[in-house]
């Protein structure tokens, strides 16, 4: 499967889903006009791919500057999918990047991570 790459815009994140190497990332802003339209297909592709994985190592990087409450629902779905992948004997690492002084973004990561048990969660402060 190829790599799915979408450029970021003012209101949607850069998406990079490297299905061959199981490395996934969302980078930038997320407050799309229509959350379902932007994320719907991405979520189904991702969960369909995760369902096929056994004994793999996968990494998901959340590197968001801002996301709205509709996006929060998508993030929660992603965390659920990542935890399910971890339950299926995959080694799952979830990296949550935030700016050092962005308490809210850090806390959001911590809250979402409460759903992770088998998946490994890392809070990472952005450099510079």
């Amino acid at each position, binding site marked *: 499967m190829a790599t799915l790459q979408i450029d970021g815009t003012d209101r949607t994140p850069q998406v990079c889903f490297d299905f061959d190497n199981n490395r996934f990332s969302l980078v930038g802003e997320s*407050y799309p006009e229509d*959350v379902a339209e932007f994320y719907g297909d991405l979520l189904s592709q991702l969960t369909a791919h995760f369902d096929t994985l056994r004994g793999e190592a996968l990494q998901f990087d959340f590197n968001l500057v801002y996301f*709205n*409450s509709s996006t*929060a629902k998508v993030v929660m779905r992603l965390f659920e999918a990542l935890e399910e992948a971890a339950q299926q004997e995959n080694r799952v690492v979830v990296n949550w990047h935030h700016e050092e002084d962005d308490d809210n973004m850090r806390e959001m990561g911590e809250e979402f991570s409460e759903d992770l048990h088998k998946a490994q969660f890392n809070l990472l402060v952005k450099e510079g």
Partner: protein
Amino acid sequence: MQTHELLPFRKNLSEQGVILCYNGLMTEEILSGIGATIKHKMATGHTDKQVARGLFSLFVEQVQNVIRYSVEKETAPHGNGTEEVTLRYGLLVVGMESDRYFVACGNMVDKQDVAKLHGNLTHIKSLDAEGLKALFRSTLKGETPSGSLGAGVGFIDIARRATRGFEFDFADVDEAHSYFSIKAYI
């Protein structure tokens, strides 16, 4: 409106600490444009970064709320004319009162929805940080409330971001409609 009307209007706005005020069709383009302007304004001032981020978030949630739920609307042809787009009206005010910023929005709602909205907001307003966190999580996990186009968590997010509190109010407009307003402080 001529200058002799606009000047007192402007004076009145500025006396109330208004930084930015918009009334009319509330569209995604307006959200993008004013959003970028708010970011510029925050970046050029001496505003704390946490406050700036929170203010932007309050702005996005409130404006998206108007775009999705205002019942004062009109439909217009879109693109080649086979599709229709719904345009909704609302009011946005961003300003500063003493040492706190505020974001306020107003829009028309159906009178029959007032009791439910009032109940939801009263409940959200009564919660402390832990309660809001719990409600945010359960709402994200649960089914989207009926009639909701978004995740149904916008108001909870507003309450969490409004570090200096928020107020809301309704006023009767006619037999079928009320005007709803919300003002969040940070």
